[in-house]
């Protein structure tokens, strides 16, 4: 297939179709990990930033981007791994947060990052249960099923659930 030179707008549209392999209701744009797209003639450069240093999904995401663009005839692609500025959940779109909650994962509560205060045995972040919407929940563990999530339980409906940690 012979495609006309891609436009930046078109590349952004295609990236919207690349999903997070761990949370497949979120596109990589919802997550905020695509930092820039540059098109120079047939050469396309996409900069992505990892959520967590060791996130194993980054390899898959890079491959998925390549495959999606390849399907549109974009063969000259460079993917840059950009570390700074470091990813933050502030970059997650509102649409992404709504999709997360509907999927059963509580979205990040802004302004509650562990930050550098090291508040030992401090109060848990108040997180709304994504199922029954109760505010009566408690933290089970800061470390959940993936690097980006903490493990919570609802005190009303008793359901255990994942909370997408605020990372700022």
């Amino acid at each position, binding site marked *: 297939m012979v495609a006309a030179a891609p436009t930046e707008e078109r590349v952004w549209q295609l990236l919207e179709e690349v999903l997070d392999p761990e949370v497949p209701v979120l596109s990589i744009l919802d997550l905020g990990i695509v930092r820039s797209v540059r098109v120079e003639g047939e050469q396309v450069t996409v900069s992505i930033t990892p959520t967590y240093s*060791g996130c194993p999904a980054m390899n898959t995401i890079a491959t998925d981007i390549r495959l999606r663009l390849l399907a549109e005839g974009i063969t000259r692609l460079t993917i840059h791994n950009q570390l700074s500025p470091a990813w933050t959940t502030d970059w997650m779109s509102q649409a992404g947060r709504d999709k997360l909650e509907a999927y059963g994962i509580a979205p990040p509560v802004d302004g509650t990052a562990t930050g550098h205060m090291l508040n030992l045995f401090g109060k848990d972040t108040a997180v709304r249960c994504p199922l029954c919407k109760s505010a009566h929940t408690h933290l089970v*563990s800061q470390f959940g099923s993936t690097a980006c999530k903490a493990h919570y339980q609802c005190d009303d409906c008793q359901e255990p659930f994942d909370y997408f940690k605020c990372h700022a």
Partner: protein
Amino acid sequence: MQVAPSDTSALNAYPPELRQLLFQYVLQLADTSLILGHRLSEWCGHGPVLEQDLAMANIGLDLLGETRSLYQYAAELEGQGRTEDDLAFLRIATQYRNPLLVEQPNGDFADTITRQFLFDNFHYHCLVQLRASADERLAAIAEKAVKEAAYHLKWSSEWIIRLGDGTEESRQRLDKALASLWRYSGELTTPTATEKALQATGLIPDYAALLPKMEAHLAHVFEEATLPVPQGVFMMTGGKEGRHTEHLGYILAELQYMQRTYPGLTW
């Protein structure tokens, strides 16, 4: 991973000698997080409870992620065509530059927590400073890793307090862990010749400035844990210069087995 590294043009701005020093230092950081990350991964499926098993696997994974960024940078600094995999899988124990603390065996949960706390207290405070390094790549790696290290230090600090101020059994185990591991804590802030040379350039943190912050946090945690801070213990060093305890060889035997047996193996 087919992701291109960030801009590398800055590397050529370093004189060869400084570039070599920086390579040694970045390699030391990478070895350190790799070996500790590997130790934590050994807990996977063996943790005392599921949540803590997951916590240790998560922390190990964070460290492994940091390791990859560091080895990739080290490979570029070296500029000899070696890759991150070559650096991790094809060097022998005496070429590893990790401090002795991180290669110590997992022991029981108190041993692992003690090792982790002593490391996290250094790691976190060092990364906070490293974010301001004039070396942009190191600063970027630190900026990323420090957010994760904050969670690690919070976790291990809370566990020191729970075990120290817990039951008779947990206290006795923590006392035993401290008696065997404290002697490895001093190496973290004892600069090698490489570190001294880099500290003089301002590219890496001065440990003398780091120590008060580490000591303050440790004093706070130990007070909450009702633990006395050990005094007058002879500090073991040598790991950062390739003189290791016997434990490292066994780690590398397991970690490198596949690449040594089937060179170039991929999947």
